[in-house]
């Protein structure tokens, strides 16, 4: 029983991490038709900026409030990077999908290479605040505390995205734009502003995933974002490319499948199991889990 509880909570924690990456990826693709391979780079930037801030930024640190400041700095760095990428690289290439893919793939390689050039290829130990160190006992299972933090943060981000979609004008524009971007512009709305906003939100969520991923794995590496991005893409395809709720459900499903398959079969088989789930979903529901409701962001 305790094993199952442990696997469920750690699976949820991993799913939470995937959701933070995939939610932005899904919004960007849904609204802008941009397959953003550079999304993992925002995660790496967030992770390394958080790590750097914890040791160098005045007011920041590796514990308590100082760690929050470090994470805030990391998220700000990821948000800024995403905004600059959208304005400087993606915007001039709207509608030119091949070029967009090439440029985002280029960034996904260049950013980790740059990080590697500055801080080296070896894993760097990530700060671990006392509050999320150790384990919590739940139904006989000793669960790492940081998993609960991941789950809580992902829940807050999900709620925030849903509120953004339903309560704000920009959220309304994004939801409508995902359905029919041309019609939104025909209403007199400059949808490009929403593109930048969505890219910034996606970058912030990915950078947050970078910071929390550092807690989850205990280390940061230059290509952490790239490897996690693969699973985020799988989540987006399974969840339906335009549904935030579908994305959350798919994230949890992928995290769970990975954890259970790794434990009950052979370590490493979890990744293959995820690909099998992806194939099964694509064969049975081509629009992903969100299916016919794929037009909804909420």
């Amino acid at each position, binding site marked *: 029983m305790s094993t199952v509880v442990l696997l469920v909570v750690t699976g949820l924690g991993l799913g939470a991490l995937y959701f933070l990456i995939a939610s932005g990826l899904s919004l960007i693709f849904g609204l802008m038709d941009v397959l953003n391979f550079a999304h993992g780079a925002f995660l790496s930037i967030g992770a390394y900026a958080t790590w750097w801030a914890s040791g160098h930024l005045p007011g920041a640190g590796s514990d308590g409030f100082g760690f929050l400041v470090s994470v805030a700095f990391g998220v700000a760095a990821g948000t800024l990077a995403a905004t600059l990428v959208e304005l400087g690289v993606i915007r001039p290439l709207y509608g030119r999908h091949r070029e967009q893919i090439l440029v985002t793939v280029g960034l996904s390689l260049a950013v980790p290479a740059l990080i590697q050039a500055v801080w080296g290829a070896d894993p760097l130990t990530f700060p671990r605040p006392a509050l999320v160190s150790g384990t919590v006992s739940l139904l006989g299972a000793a669960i790492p505390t940081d998993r609960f933090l991941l789950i809580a943060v992902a829940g807050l981000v999900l709620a925030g995205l849903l509120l953004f979609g339903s309560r704000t004008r920009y959220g309304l524009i994004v939801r409508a734009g995902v359905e029919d971007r041309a019609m939104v512009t025909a209403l007199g709305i*400059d949808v490009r502003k929403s593109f930048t906003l969505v890219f910034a939100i996606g970058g912030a969520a990915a950078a947050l995933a970078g910071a929390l991923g550092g807690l989850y794995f205990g280390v940061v590496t230059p290509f952490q974002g790239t490897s996690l991005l693969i699973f985020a893409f799988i989540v987006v395809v399974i969840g339906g490319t335009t549904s935030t709720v579908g994305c959350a459900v798919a994230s949890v499903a992928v995290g769970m499948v990975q954890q259970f398959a790794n434990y009950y079969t052979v370590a490493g088989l979890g990744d293959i199991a995820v690909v099998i789930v992806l194939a099964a979903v694509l064969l049975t529901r081509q629009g992903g889990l969100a299916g016919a409701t794929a037009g909804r962001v909420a």
Partner: protein
Amino acid sequence: MSAAPAAPLLDVADLHVWIEGSHILQGVSFTVADHGVTSLLGRNGVGKTTTVKAVLGLVPRTGRTVFAGRDITADPTHAIASLGIGYVPEDRGVFAGLTVAENLRLAERRGQTPRYELVHDLFPELAKRAAQPAGTLSGGQQQMLAIGRVLLNENRLLIVDEPTKGLAPRVVAEVADAVARVAEEVPVLLVEQNLALVRRVAGQAVVVDAGRVVHTGAVLDLLDDAERTRELLGVSRTSAPATHPQGGTA
């Protein structure tokens, strides 16, 4: 000495559109007066919808488009719409995942007071169904929402693309009434194959064939000439009830 004729509200000259290598519009030129309804007519697939999309900048085009004295040829769609052009597309363009109220709220323009009273007076159904997702509305209700959405703002021109297409006869009459009432207040460029509706509301006709304008003139002059109507539009009966030739849903 007679007064100079009023400048047209919309002046389209030598409009060309290529889509995936096909030369869809081959030099379309026409004008829309600053009052009444100008109808854009033609058989299926001759380029009527592409013409209005080109005017709005929704498809890449060359040529020259002047609206209210301003050259809008190079302007992006949102800037063109913001000049006061309301667009009701052929497929209605309502956002299925948004509620009726959200669809209307989205259409509100900065600096204008949204005219909800007018919209709800014309289409009371929209007030009753405010919280309903637009995707669950009937075809007729979606059309009312699409028209209501452009009436929310004070536009200088409405472009309405086949508003009665796919609607049941009783709904066609309701939509036709709405178009007629709207046309009393604001100039309309109406793309329509329902010639009974055209006869009822439109003053001028522009006929497109194979990507070119092949006829312009008064609607009644055209529709009263059965031979010419058959030649240009492929139909002969023009005074039938205002139901759409393709049938439809409520």
